[in-house]
């Protein structure tokens, strides 16, 4: 055994067939799993010119070798496809329990091609796979869909990953939700499933997942468990959830406010992790094998659900000028129920708010209008009224009304909750992200704001290109392994390499780990180049390069792209346009 389930299933929705094949050794060795499997299979199976919302696009669900092995925080799976929002080869990562269940059902990956004539769902069941009718599930929320599948199978151990009405309506930033509240959130994965008429994947099974060297793995597990438990950062995640970031980002004057017009929100405390903990929090919650439990289960005024995580908390809050925590939480719950990305949806509303205030769009919404914001979320979720236009994402919306510069996005995907003007390396990481506006493909906030693994001056550009490259490559490898990225606050590359080596039996050291990550990054980049992306796309909204911040320590700062981009490309072995040189591709086994 090697930590893998052993098989992959290819589903042709047009033909209504499934085919089960062994997971190739070379794929494991070169790409580990998760995002690595996703981008390799996408490259092998899909013409780069393929339209995202077309029969020929392919969606890959893949777990990693560490998923479901009992390693602390080894719970993740990844969904990869061509994004209908960005047009890039993109992946989105989710935790919860589904990834583990997919492997217990016998599968490392699910490869979905074609388009079903009528709604279907896929059942993975102890080594078998079958398509089932889902006409009765169409139109249902993610919670209703999950409950209906569990009930009809009569088995509470079933885990479901599904889309809600927003995916069915092809909202370009519709997401995929498992266990009702865990999201493969970004890049519009849900719309691709909606186009394909695939409502859900359900998994059940009790097949064994065994490591190559259980004895050695137990020793490494114990080491990483201790490091995570003794790490102060992980304790804060448990006590306050990810929204504990609200105050520290705000106090650094880099909390984007009112569509990035400013970067300090005076009422940030009202939506902070500390306030959540003492008001609406019912209990913390973790994913499979989690010993941190950063998830939040909330309950108030008859409203019950999970979250909010930091990003939607910020996006529905300060980015929309709203300090009403309950409204923020309700909006986040609508996103979970309807299957909407809870970053892009509110960031698109914030874009509308600025355009409406400036008179570019005739709409009554204004910053701070919580009731109006909630109405807009529902309209986007179902493409009603102006929601139909907003469902295209902030860039397409703002461009339609003549002001694309007011979309705070990169490669048409809305930026997360940090102002790059005061965090230079983070700006480079998100501008060069191969899936567009993003924070988890290379989390430079950690060294530049949080001080881990060491403190880097956020205002300085020197040396940041190397940090960004290393973070991006390491993150790609962590995502491929099936581990939660939050382990990286406590673990180092040696820990991941040891976990993977003990689990798979493959000779993985830190050099090889980073090489796998770099291979994944370059392959994703190559796919995007074939789709027409180049240097001019590796940037951020003009506002961030030309309008200085006005308050606090970063006052006067803009994001200084030109001081970092050439060095970043050079370190990657890419030419001035951002194209990997043949020598680099040979080095990575890609040429």
């Amino acid at each position, binding site marked *: 055994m090697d930590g893998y389930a052993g098989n992959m299933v290819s589903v042709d929705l047009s033909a209504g067939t499934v085919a089960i094949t062994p997971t190739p050794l070379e794929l494991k060795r070169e790409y580990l799993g998760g995002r690595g499997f996703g981008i390799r299979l996408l490259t092998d199976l899909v013409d780069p010119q393929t339209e995202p919302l077309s029969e020929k696009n392919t969606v890959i669900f893949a777990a990693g070798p560490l998923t479901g092995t009992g390693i602390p925080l080894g719970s993740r799976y990844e969904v990869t496809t061509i994004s209908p929002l960005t047009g890039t080869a993109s992946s989105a990562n989710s935790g919860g329990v589904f990834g583990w269940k997919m492997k217990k059902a016998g599968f490392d990956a699910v490869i979905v091609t074609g388009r079903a004539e009528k709604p279907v769902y896929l059942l993975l069941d102890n080594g078998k796979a079958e398509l089932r009718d889902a006409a009765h599930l169409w139109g249902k929320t993610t919670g209703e869909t999950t409950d209906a599948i569990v009930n009809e199978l009569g088995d509470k151990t079933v885990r479901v990953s599904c889309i809600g009405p927003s995916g069915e309506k092809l909202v370009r930033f519709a997401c995929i939700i498992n266990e009702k509240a865990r999201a493969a959130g970004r890049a519009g994965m849900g719309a691709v499933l909606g186009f394909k008429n695939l409502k859900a994947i359900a998994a059940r099974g009790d097949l064994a997942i065994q490591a190559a060297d259980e004895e050695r793995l137990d020793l490494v597990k114990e080491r990483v468990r201790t490091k995570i438990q003794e790490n102060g950062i992980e304790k*804060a995640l448990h006590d306050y959830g990810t929204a504990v970031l609200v105050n520290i980002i705000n*106090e*650094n004057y880099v909390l984007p406010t009112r569509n990035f017009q400013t970067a300090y929100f005076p009422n940030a405390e009202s939506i902070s992790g500390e306030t959540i903990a003492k008001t609406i929090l019912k209990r913390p919650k973790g994913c499979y094998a989690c010993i941190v439990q950063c998830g939040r289960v909330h309950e108030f005024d008859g409203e019950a659900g999970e979250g909010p995580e930091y990003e939607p908390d910020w996006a529905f809050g300060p980015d929309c000028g709203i300090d009403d925590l309950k409204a923020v939480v309700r909006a986040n719950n609508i996103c979970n129920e309807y299957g909407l990305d809870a970053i892009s949806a509110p960031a698109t509303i914030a874009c509308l708010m600025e355009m409406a205030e400036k008179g570019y769009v005739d709409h009554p919404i204004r910053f701070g209008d919580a009731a109006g914001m909630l109405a807009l979320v529902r309209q986007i979720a179902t493409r009603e009224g102006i929601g139909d236009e907003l469902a295209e994402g902030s860039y397409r919306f703002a461009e339609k009304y003549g002001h694309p510069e007011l979309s705070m996005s990169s490669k048409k995907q809305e930026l997360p909750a940090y102002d790059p003007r005061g965090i230079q390396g983070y700006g480079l990481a998100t501008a060069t992200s191969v899936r567009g506006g993003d924070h988890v493909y290379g989390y430079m906030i950690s060294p530049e704001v*949080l*001080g*881990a693994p060491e*403190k880097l*001056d956020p205002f300085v550009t020197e040396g940041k290109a190397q940090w960004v490259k290393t973070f991006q490559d390491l993150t790609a490898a962590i995502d491929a392994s099936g581990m939660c990225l939050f382990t990286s606050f406590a673990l180092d590359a040696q820990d991941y390499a040891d976990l993977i080596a003990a689990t798979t039996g493959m000779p993985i050291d830190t050099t090889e780990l980073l090489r796998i990550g770099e291979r994944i990054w370059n392959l994703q980049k190559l796919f995007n180049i074939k789709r027409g992306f180049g240097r001019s796309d590796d940037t951020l909204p003009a506002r961030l390069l030309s309008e200085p911040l006005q308050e606090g*320590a970063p006052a006067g700062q803009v994001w200084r792209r030109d001081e970092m981009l050439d060095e970043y490309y050079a370190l990657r072995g890419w030419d001035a346009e951002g194209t990997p040189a043949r020598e680099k591709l040979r080095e990575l086994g890609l040429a």
Partner: protein
Amino acid sequence: MSGDGAVTNGTESGITVTVKSFATFREVMETQLVLQLPGGATVQTLLAELTARYSGLGGMLFAAPGRLRDYVNILKNGRNVHFLAGLDTPLDDGDVIALFPPLAGG
């Protein structure tokens, strides 16, 4: 400690600073307080005052005397003092000092 003891803009005898605490620091101290400090006070002066006032805070802040725990962040008006003069960073009248224990999210 740096600083020459000169009074900076504040009252004749000292300066006034606002201190904000976050996350687990709030388990041992107030969320916000205003302190009078002598002219020439530094971050070190402030932390000495706070650790004397609040039992348990010293252990949360320091790994050893004069050495902050990993990932503890102290901001002076939004700038991490690590990039100023560390614990020797001089304080000025009206400064806002934010104290953060190790934390993360994303």
